[in-house]
C-alpha cells in the first residue's frame, strides 16, 4: 500500500504568471493538502512575459509526488511543472550568508575553512565575518556545521534553485 512506499526527495520547477497571490496559491496548496515543503524559492525570470520561476524541494512517495505535480498543474496561473529529479540530470545550487563572530585562533580557522569551501568574506569587522557560500545543499550544510564551534551567529539561506543540464529549457 501507499504508506509503506519509499519517501523520496524531488526538486520541482514551476513556471507561473508573476501576479499577486500566485505564491499564496502554491503555498496554500501544499499546506491545505498536507504536502511537505523543504525549500521554496521564487523570482521573476521573464519580465516581458511576466513569468516567475518557483523551485520547490519536496518529499513524498511516488504517488504523492505525482499528486503534487498534478495539483500544481491545476492552478490557472501555472504554465509548466517539471520534476527535475526524474526528468534527467540537473544542477541545484543554494546560496547562504553565514555570520561568524570570533577572535584569535578561531577567527583564523574560520577563514581557513571558508577558503576550502570557496566561501567569500563579504563583510568583516574586528570580531565578525559574513561569508557567502554557494553550492549544493549538502555543501552549505557542511560549511555551517563546521562554523558552529567557531562562533556561528546567524544564517540566511536562499533555498535551492535548480536547472536541467544540457541545452533544453523547461
Amino acid at each position: 500500500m501507499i504508506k509503506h512506499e519509499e519517501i523520496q526527495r524531488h526538486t520541482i520547477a514551476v513556471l507561473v504568471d508573476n501576479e499577486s497571490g500566485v505564491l499564496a496559491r502554491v503555498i496554500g496548496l501544499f499546506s491545505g493538502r498536507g504536502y511537505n515543503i523543504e525549500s521554496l524559492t521564487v523570482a521573476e525570470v521573464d519580465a516581458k512575459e511576466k513569468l516567475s520561476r518557483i523551485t520547490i524541494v519536496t518529499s513524498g512517495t511516488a504517488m504523492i509526488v505525482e499528486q503534487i505535480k498534478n495539483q500544481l498543474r491545476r492552478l490557472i496561473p501555472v504554465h509548466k511543472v517539471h520534476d527535475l529529479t526524474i526528468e534527467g540530470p540537473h544542477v541545484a545550487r543554494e546560496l547562504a550568508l553565514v555570520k561568524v563572530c570570533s577572535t584569535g585562533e578561531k577567527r583564523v580557522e574560520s577563514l581557513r575553512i571558508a577558503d576550502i569551501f570557496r566561501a567569500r568574506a563579504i563583510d568583516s569587522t574586528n570580531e565578525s565575518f559574513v561569508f557567502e557560500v554557494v553550492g549544493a545543499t549538502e555543501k552549505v550544510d557542511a560549511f555551517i556545521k563546521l562554523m558552529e564551534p567557531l562562533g556561528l551567529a546567524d544564517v540566511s539561506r536562499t533555498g535551492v534553485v535548480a536547472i536541467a543540464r544540457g541545452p533544453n529549457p523547461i
Partner: protein
Amino acid sequence: MAHHDTLNGAEILLKALVDQGVEVIFGYPGGAVLPIYDELFKQNRLRHVLVRHEQAAVHAAEGYARSTGKVGCVLVTSGPGATNAVTGLADAQCDSVPLVCLTGQVPTHLIGNDAFQEADITGITRPCTKHNYLVKDVNDLARIVHEAFHVARSGRPGPVLIDLPKDVVQSKGEYQPPSKVKSKYKPQVKGDIKAIEKAIDMIAHAKRPIFYVGGGVINSGPAACQLMTQFVRMTGYPCTLTLMGLGAIPGSDPLFLGMLGMHGTVEANMAMHDCDLMINIGARFDDRVTGKLEGFSPKSKKIHVDIDPSSINKNVAVDLAIVGDCAHVLEDMIKVWKAKQCRVDDKALKTWWKQIDQWRGMDCLAFEGSNKLIKPQYAIKRLYELTRHRNPYICTEVGQHQMWAAQYLKFDLPHHWLTSGGLGTMGYGLPSAMGVQMAHPDALVIDIAGEASIQMNIQEMATLVQHRLPVKIVILNNQYLGMVRQWQELIHGGRYSESHMTHHPDFVKLAEAFGAVGLRATKPDEVDGVFKEMMAVDRPVIVEMLTDASENVFPMIMPGMAHNEMVLGPEDKSRDKPGSEEDGMVLV
C-alpha cells in the same frame, strides 16, 4: 472627451455578463455593489433573483447550472455578503459546478485598512474556488469576466470568484468583447488514442467487467450521457453509477445495477469487489465509494477516464489512465470498438451476469412495510411512482432522506438529480430547487428534505413566493438528525448525543406564514392523497410527512469495511463487527 465606447465599470460588467449568455443572477445587494445594482435597475436583459441569504444565492446558481449545463451567476456584496457565500462556493468546488461569483469589495485605496464590510475574500476563497480574481483596473474588467467564464466552464468545471472594488466599478474604461480575449487555460479534452485502443482491448477481453460511472459524464453533457448509454448497451456489461452520476445512463436500464458505495446496492458493490476489469468513466474513487482501500476491488485491472489529471492515481492506483473529456473519449472508444469489430466474451459474460442476478435476487432495498407508520422508503417510492410521468427535477438536502432518494428514485434523464455529494451541505436542496425552477419554469421541481436540513435555508420560502417559483418541498420528519442518529445507534453505543430535535416549527403553518401551501401526512394511507394534492397546486408547497423515527439506511458499508462486507439490514449480525482502522487512519 470620453471615447464613444467608454463605459463605467458596472456597465462593462453587465455587458460582459450578457455577452457570456447570462440570463439570471442570484444575489443580494449591499454598499459595495450599489453601483452594479444601479446599472441592473436601468436594464432588462438580466433578471435578478433576490435571495434571503447569500449562501442560498450560490446554491440557487448551482441548481441553475447543473440543470442547464450553463454557468451559474451570483452577485453579493463585500464582507459578510461574500463570507456567507463561502459554503456555496466550497460546495460547487467539491461537486465541480461551473459558477461565476461576483463579490463587492471596498474601494482599492481602503483595501487592507480593515474598512467597513471588508474581508479578504480572494484569500478566504483561494482553496474553495477553481480560481479567483481581484480586479484592480477597470480596463482589465471585461477580460477578467470573459476569462472567468471560460475557466468556470472548461476542463473540470468549478466556481470562479471575481472581487470588484467599488471604485473600479465606478470608474470609466473600455469594453472588450469575448472574441478579443485569449485565455492561456486550455485543458486537454481529447484522450490519447493509443491509450484508448489499449482500453478497448482490455474491455473486449474482460470476463467480469463493470462500468463505474460518475458525475464527470453528467458534466460532460447530454451527448456524453448518450454515448455512455450506447457503449454500455453495445457491450452488455453491467454499469453502476455514483451519487453524482445518477442519470448518466437511464435508471430503468436492466444493465444498471444501482448506485454503489456506502449505501449502494449489494449487486453494485459486490460486482465492484469481484470484477476483473473496472472501467471508471468520470468518477474519482471517493472514500464514500471505495470503503477500505486495502479491500477495494482487489482482483481487478482498472481503467480511469477523467478530465482532471489530479483525480488519477490519487486514492487508487490504476492500470490505465486516459485524461480527457468523457464525451470525446467515449466517442473514440465506440469508434475503435466498431473499427476493431470487437466482440465480448459471451460465455464469460453470461456466467458473470448469472452471479450478478444472484446478488440482485437478494433485493437489498426491500423494507418492511407498515400500515401505522409512514416508512420513509415508502414515502419516496410513492413520490417516485406518482411523479415519474412528469420527469421531475429532484433536489435533496443531506442525510438519510438523501440516501433513500438516491436508492429508490430512478433517473432516466441526466441533469434531473441535484444533490450535495462532495461537501454534504445541509441546506443545499431548497435554494438549489429555486435555481432549477428559475431555469425550467414549467417543470415539476421537488426538494426532498429532512426536518433538520430544511431549517438551514428555510428563509428561502420567501424567495419562492416572491418570484412565484412553485417548488415542492417534501419533508420527511423523523424528529432526529437521522444520519447522525443512525451512526450513533450503530457505532456509538446508542448514545444519541444532541441528535434529537425536540422542537420544530409547525411546517404547515410555517408554509402558510410565508404565503405558500402547507400539507401534512401522518399515516401511510394519507401519503398518496397528499402527493396528488401537492402536484395539483401551482404554488410553492411544503409537504410534511411524519415518518418512522427508527428507520436506518441499508445496505451500509460500515466505516473501515470493504465492499463485500455490507450490513444488509437491522437483523444482520455483521453490523456488530467493529470496522478496522486502516493503517491507523481514522475513517469518517
